[in-house]
């Protein structure tokens, strides 16, 4: 199905069979079905294979530094809350290099959607372990297998207070699209961790492995926090779908004093010369 977010005539540098192609389709279809136009949306990314996404679709785009997509996206939303901001990246980008921002962006709760293409391996740098690689995973650097405990993004997001926490699977474009739609519609920070095979560097977590080790949630009540947390902690099989959807709380941009008396985005504002003069007057007394 064609969407207004398609960018024709481009060369895509992902490996043939990469899960990223399917996620890209899910994102474009989700935005299309939500009635958004490329001019409403800013896709923000860092560095990695997943972070190339903004170059492969039609919308405003900001492809920044490795690990920094969340501060970029938070600021873009804060500077113009009418924009729909989607921050995309891989597991290394969002959970490794950008780990501190991940923790604090959740606390800050900007109204952005965070899509993490989680293939449990570093693709761009050719096959090293990522924060979500399973223990024992052997690579050219982790020659004796990964020692560290894998990072659990969903449980972390839940205990940090994220209002919307979901997991999807690249292999199911339709269901992943539906989860993304829900995430975009949620007013506040929304995380979708998207399981995805890496056909070049991960021979453990393959399409077949995901099929065997995941299942889509059915009849789960996403308002139940403790159930969500226990699902986030459960493995093999891993649950897919919306684990948690809490009550919407004040967003970061909604809390800013900048918008208390003026709803205009920041780019529309004139320099507050009178306010400066008043402050100077105050300094004379």
């Amino acid at each position: 199905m064609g969407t207004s977010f398609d960018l024709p005539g481009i060369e895509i540098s992902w490996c043939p069979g990469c899960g990223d192609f399917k996620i890209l389709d899910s994102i474009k279809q989700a935005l299309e079905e939500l009635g958004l136009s490329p001019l409403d949306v800013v896709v923000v990314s860092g560095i990695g294979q997943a972070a190339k996404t903004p170059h492969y679709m039609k919308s405003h785009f900001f492809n920044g530094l490795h690990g920094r997509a969340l501060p970029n996206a938070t600021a873009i939303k804060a500077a113009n809350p009418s924009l729909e901001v989607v921050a995309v990246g891989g597991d290394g980008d969002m959970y490794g290099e950008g780990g501190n921002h991940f923790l604090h962006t959740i606390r800050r709760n900007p109204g952005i959607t965070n899509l993490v293409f989680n293939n449990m391996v570093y693709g761009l740098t050719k096959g090293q372990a990522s924060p979500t690689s399973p223990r024992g995973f052997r690579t050219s650097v982790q020659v004796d297998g990964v020692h560290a405990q894998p990072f659990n993004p969903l449980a972390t997001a839940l205990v940090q207070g994220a209002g919307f926490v979901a997991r999807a699977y690249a292999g199911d474009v339709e269901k992943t699209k539906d989860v993304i739609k829900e995430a975009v519609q949620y007013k506040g920070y929304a995380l979708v961790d998207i399981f995805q095979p890496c056909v070049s560097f991960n021979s453990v977590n393959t399409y077949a492995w995901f099929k065997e080790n995941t299942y889509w949630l059915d009849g789960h009540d996403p308002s139940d926090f403790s159930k969500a947390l226990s699902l986030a902690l459960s493995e093999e099989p891993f649950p897919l779908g919306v684990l948690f959807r809490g009550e919407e709380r004040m967003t970061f941009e909604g809390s800013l004093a900048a918008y208390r008396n003026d709803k205009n985005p920041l780019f529309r504002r004139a320099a507050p010369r009178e306010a400066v003069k008043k402050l100077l007057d105050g300094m004379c007394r």
Partner: protein
Amino acid sequence: MIFPFSGEVKEVSCVLSGAAGLGIQTVEDMLARIVVDSGFSVFGSREYMSRVRGGNNSTELRIAPFRVDALVDRMDILVALSRNVRENIRERITPSTLIIGDKEELKGELEDAGALFVDVPLSRLAAEAGGRIYSNSVAAGILLGILGLGTEKAEAFFEERFSGKKGDVAGKNTTACRSGYELGEKLVKGKGLLSGMQADLQVGKALINGSDAVSLGAMAAGCNFVTAYPMSPATGVLSFFAKHAEKAGAAVEQVEDELAAINMAVGASYTGARPLVTTSGGGFALMGEGLSLAGVMETPVVVHLSQRPGPATGMATRTEQADLELALYSGHGEFPRAIYAPGSIESAFSLTQEAFRVALKYQTPAIVLTDQYFVNSFYNVRPDDLFFSEPPSPVRETGEGYRRYEETASGCSPFGVPGWGSGIVGADSHEHDEVGHVYENFKLRKRMQEKRMRKLEGMREEALAPKLYGADEFTDLVLCWGSTIPIFKEALTLLDLKQTALLAFEQVWPLHSSVDALLKRARRIVAAEGNSTAQFARLLRAQTGVAATDTVLKYNGLQFSVEEAARRLSEVFSGTGGRS
């Protein structure tokens, strides 16, 4: 002649010293206000230890019937509120210093410091007024008595500051202040030190420190996005914007780290906000990659970099000018930037606006370089002397087919933002094409690198010329930049050398075209800097081929004083010191 001051008193330098938490700052605020309202000028500078309570901090108040804007060593009056006055204060005591302290409190300290020691029962008078916490107001009263400024203005100050507080705090302060005043008056036999000086009621009434001058300049330039991680001595700017966020219409956030601060600034800038980050050397080092991002994305970002001694954590509450090269060379790759180093309150206000103007016009980072001494020093200025530059023009709407990185002769592409117009707005940290998409093409790379660096040519043409003070027909030139300018200016006035001029730089990059010729005219060049390797002299040599012949450097964590600057310059000129 007034006891204990001999000769004609032209100006008065008072130093208050005491542990943190004793209310020195309240006294400083109040005295400065009263002095100015009485028609005199005041300069205040604070030096403090990196601790919240205890230790020993001091503040200098220089009071004169003429503009005062530079630190002096001279102490006419030292008020010691507590024991353990530190070496940096003690070594400034001379036989003509009047030391005021409470013997009981000081337990013999400073009594034989080689100056006149006057014992005043600060603690007892404070206790009589309502408690020992009022000893700062007794001290303020003594100083007002010595200066001969009356207590009425102090009483009004207490009323305003403490109105609504339980237990008549204002009244107790007033009582304490009055009892101090009587003592002070007696010391000078009723003839206040300022009584013989010509007051000028037209004197500048705005008391502004360096930090607020930078903040006000940013606000005047339309800064509406401020992100920072708290770090001395740069936090004042963050606090200012947090306090005035609503008035400024600014988004203000204390973030998790400096990487977030600069990356938020770049994101905001892409969206058309006018961002500022404020930090010190360590935090700025963390921002290096983000600064480079602003360079390649061509997003206007202004950084306030307030220097303190390094390396690493260095001395958190002290001053230095050693981050010039960090500011110049931070960020990998090559991209244009502008660096300003204001030397006065007035120029901190105008140059911060200039930083925003240039960052916006050339779509690249601009840095305002201050230091601990500068941000924590204040004096009185006339609001009318503060220059407001042209406000930023509104962002233009994009049209269909808009390309963010369109080639132009100046290198500056039309600036569009997402959400305004029918164009797609892209930005990329990779080398990119005109639209902003990543392409690995060597010709494109060369073209884009040249486009970005072309902007530096325009920035160079608009660079501010250094100011020359002193002899037009100089043979000797003293170079300085940033916060040391007023100090060296005054030092040279004292020395009154016929063939020497001061060349003062408030824009340190890019350099104005006049610099080359000016340096080549000098027979002798003395580089005066607050660092240990003469960084600016090195930059000038690289740019002009002219090397400084001598240096006057300071890097112990404290600012030059006027006297020290004069002494060290005269040593250089008499051939007894400083040759490099």
